[in-house]
């Protein structure tokens, strides 16, 4: 089993390395990631949102609906943590009570 997972991992590593040969160079100004929407953010974000920090402008204004979803996700995750552990302790207390 260990041999199998090791062989699979090494094959995947080779595949990923081969695939990374086709990626743009680090620091390439004309890479596809820097072409479509990113120049618009850099040029117009201050005029449109009034925030010099472009990350804040993208996070809280252009994509604020997305951030609302993320905030809801982390709130639900926190609530789920509390609920999972509370159920555990409650059940244990109930069992202890029935034993007595």
């Amino acid at each position, binding site marked *: 089993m260990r041999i199998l997972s090791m062989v699979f*991992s090494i094959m995947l*590593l080779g595949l990923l390395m081969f695939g990374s040969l086709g990626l743009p160079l680090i620091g390439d100004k004309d890479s596809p990631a820097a072409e479509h929407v990113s120049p618009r*953010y850099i040029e117009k974000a201050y005029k449109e949102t009034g925030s010099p920090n472009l990350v804040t402008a993208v996070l809280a204004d252009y994509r604020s609906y997305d951030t609302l979803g993320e905030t809801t996700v982390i709130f639900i995750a926190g609530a789920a943590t509390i609920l999972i552990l509370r159920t555990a302790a409650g059940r244990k207390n109930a069992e202890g009570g029935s034993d007595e």
Partner: protein
Amino acid sequence: MNELLSNIIYFLIAVLFVFGLYGMLDKRNFMKKLMAMNIMQISVIIFFLALGQKLDATLPILVHGLEGVDQYVNPLPHALMLTAIVVSLSTTGVALALLLRIQDRYEDLEEPEILRGMDK
């Protein structure tokens, strides 16, 4: 030279990803599986940040006297990964809570022990 350097960064990210995957496949302890999953997450985050990089560019906060698209790195991966980091934190919290529940129920986190406990 530049090509080689950037490929080395991608190779290192791939190595980190495969370390995480190998840990999730091979380790029997659920805590170690969770740590391996976090390593995979970090490698994906680093990959996104590496794609947003530009040569000779500064961080995406506008300052006077620096105008032009090529002067600032791409702000979009930073914004996406910022939320991804916080979401990974809270999902790790949920996973740890589930691990505590498993520990309560089966008194072990090793996979064979848990499977044996399920058969009982």
